[in-house]
């Protein structure tokens, strides 16, 4: 098990190096550098002035040398400076990550229990009316990406009914302005997790030991709660962990839509301004989150299901 984890951590490190190399190459392409020079210097710089600006600021060093020095600094904890915010990345990043963390906490709190309840209810009697209607509802929710549900919710609840606010501020987190972003993000993932739970639950309900429990006269509710649930929740666990890459895109969309200044907002600012160090740091954070959750899901799956042996 330890060797497995170490191997996976090695793969994660290798992936990080490959991905940052690609990002580094893309942000250092000529047109992108020109954009930096013009926003940092002045918009009316001539080509020669741009060139000398880039020369002066070290953007014309050999590519691998630049990347190497970035990597060495990064490993030592120096993530460089953000050009857009004129501050070190270490100062900009944690604040924004914290805001997104709060958002994600509420999303998880709404999404996971909701999805599991829907999935279990639908899967415990396969083919019933309840199952059919819940299944169609979850398919509908997976069909509406964040930018569709966000628009729908804003139109219905904010513009027409006026119950909630269409903007979420990072300064004050209230029920009024946090409901819509949280709902928007949880609905899209909820359908998917619910469908996985339903499939897993339906499979468990057809197994022999459930039949035995039913035949010995146990109440249906007891069978579901005591026997079926435990085995049925193994598969959704993996699915929930694997939802993180999608949630990340969701965060960017929702934060853009509701003007919530968290990590997604930061990523968009970094990408739009070609803010090299900030963008690299953002991609590292994103990739680490994705790969670590994959690792946790693999380990957790092996832990929850003793039949799986990790090689």
């Amino acid at each position, binding site marked *: 098990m330890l060797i497995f984890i170490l191997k996976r951590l090695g793969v994660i490190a290798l992936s990080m190096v490959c991905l940052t190399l690609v990002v580094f190459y893309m942000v250092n392409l000529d047109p992108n550098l020109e954009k930096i020079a013009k926003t940092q210097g002045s918009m009316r710089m001539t080509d020669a002035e741009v060139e000398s600006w880039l020369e002066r600021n070290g953007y014309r060093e050999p590519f691998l040398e630049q990347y190497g020095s970035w990597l060495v600094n990064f490993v030592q904890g120096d993530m460089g400076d953000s050009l857009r915010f004129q501050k070190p990345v270490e100062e900009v990043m944690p604040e924004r990550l914290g805001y997104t963390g709060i958002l994600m906490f509420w999303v998880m709190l709404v999404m996971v229990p909701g999805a599991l309840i829907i999935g279990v209810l639908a899967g415990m009697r396969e083919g019933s009316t309840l199952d059919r209607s819940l299944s169609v509802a979850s398919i509908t929710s997976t069909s509406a990406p964040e930018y569709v549900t966000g*628009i729908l919710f804003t139109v219905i609840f904010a513009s027409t009914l006026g119950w909630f606010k269409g903007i979420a501020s990072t300064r004050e987190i209230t029920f009024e302005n946090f409901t819509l972003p949280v709902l928007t993000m949880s609905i899209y993932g909820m359908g998917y997790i619910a469908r996985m739970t339903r499939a897993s639950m339906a499979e468990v309900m057809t197994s022999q030991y459930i039949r035995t429990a039913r035949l010995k006269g146990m109440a249906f509710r007891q069978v579901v709660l005591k026997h079926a649930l435990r085995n049925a929740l193994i598969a959704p666990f993996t699915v929930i962990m694997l939802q993180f890459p999608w949630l990340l895109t969701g965060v960017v969309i929702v934060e853009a839509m509701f003007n919530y200044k968290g990590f997604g907002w930061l990523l968009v600012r970094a990408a739009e301004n070609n803010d090299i160090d900030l963008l690299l740091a953002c991609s590292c954070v994103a990739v680490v989150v994705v790969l670590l959750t994959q690792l946790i899901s693999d380990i957790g799956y092996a832990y929850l299901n003793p039949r799986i042996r990790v090689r």
Partner: protein
Amino acid sequence: MELEYLTTGGIIAESLSRFIPVWIALAVTLVGGWFVRDRLSTFGRLYGSPVGLAGITLVLFWVFTALFADMIAVLEAREVAFLMKKAQPGGIDPQSGIAFLWGGDNLGRDVFSRVVYGSRVVLIIAPAATLIAYMVGITLGLPAGYNGGWIDSVLSFVANLVLAFPVILLFYLLVTPEIRALQYDTWLLGWMGVGWSIPRAMAAFFFLFPILFLTIMWFTKYEKNRTRLLTYGGITALVGFWIYFGIAFGWEPKIGEIPLNLALDPNELNVFAAVVFASSPGVFRIVRGLTMDIKTRDYVAAAQTRGERPWYIMLWEILPNARGPLIVDACLRIGYTTILLGTLGFFGLGLEPESPDWGSMINHGRQFVRLASTAHMALFPALALMLLVLGLNLMADGLREESLKD
């Protein structure tokens, strides 16, 4: 100036009547399909599932809307009526007397016509990109799953790398005007008249796979039958390379006076390549998993004992037996690609801002969504996108249910 408005009932009735060509085509297809349902194999069985039937109806609705867009839309997608700026749904343009059923946007364009034309953009790019992603995923996933070993390790590592990268960041890096504008002057410039750029290189790489896939397919099947091999191979090469050079390199051939032009706008090429790039690894993983499962079956062992070559076994024994899950996945994936396209549009990346695709319209209208009087600008394209994806997902669900009945 005050506009005259239709009533809500009037808007609904008028909207329904503008879609008349679609209703007729839908009725003909669905009724016609019912009579020949036994011959339609997998799709014919959708008639047995209400969910699947609802799904295919929704999908066909948008397919026919895209086909008959010229008959349904009353105005051009970019036509501006100055008096109709931010007009409410049902407003009647005093100049032309045309009712703007779903309102006008902030530039005075008809939202209805734009949504209708938008279905064209979406229904061309999403299925085509999915098809190419499938060819890439199959051509790489089959050997990875069948052979295992280092090929599998390398390909899986690359696929996981792409999958681990946040889609949105990928798009922000790949689909920008700067990247499009960057052209390298190499031999290609002298030869084809266009320079290498990153999107073009990606397109040149990915679009090679369909040709490769078909060529291997014909070669393994008709190795001994020279005439067939030459016919099929020749047609594939001819049509394939015409499309390939047309799309990836903007080649504009002519036969006499008839232009055989397939060149894409650089924006579209960029979006196309980026979407294929983002969805191929997913297909690769599914194909690889299915191959690893199916290669343990007896008929594969029988083929191996017969002395068939690996590529024959992969393409003619394994692939046909994986088609059930792959068809279901393809439906889901077209929906997913539609969502990706919408995401691109939502961030204003890719297609030009006036483009009537749904994502760009949502992006354009979202700044006005907080006021009830202007919410329609983003609302209708959002509903359209949702209905199309819903149709595809319901269809996939119906297909899966029906295939499980065997």
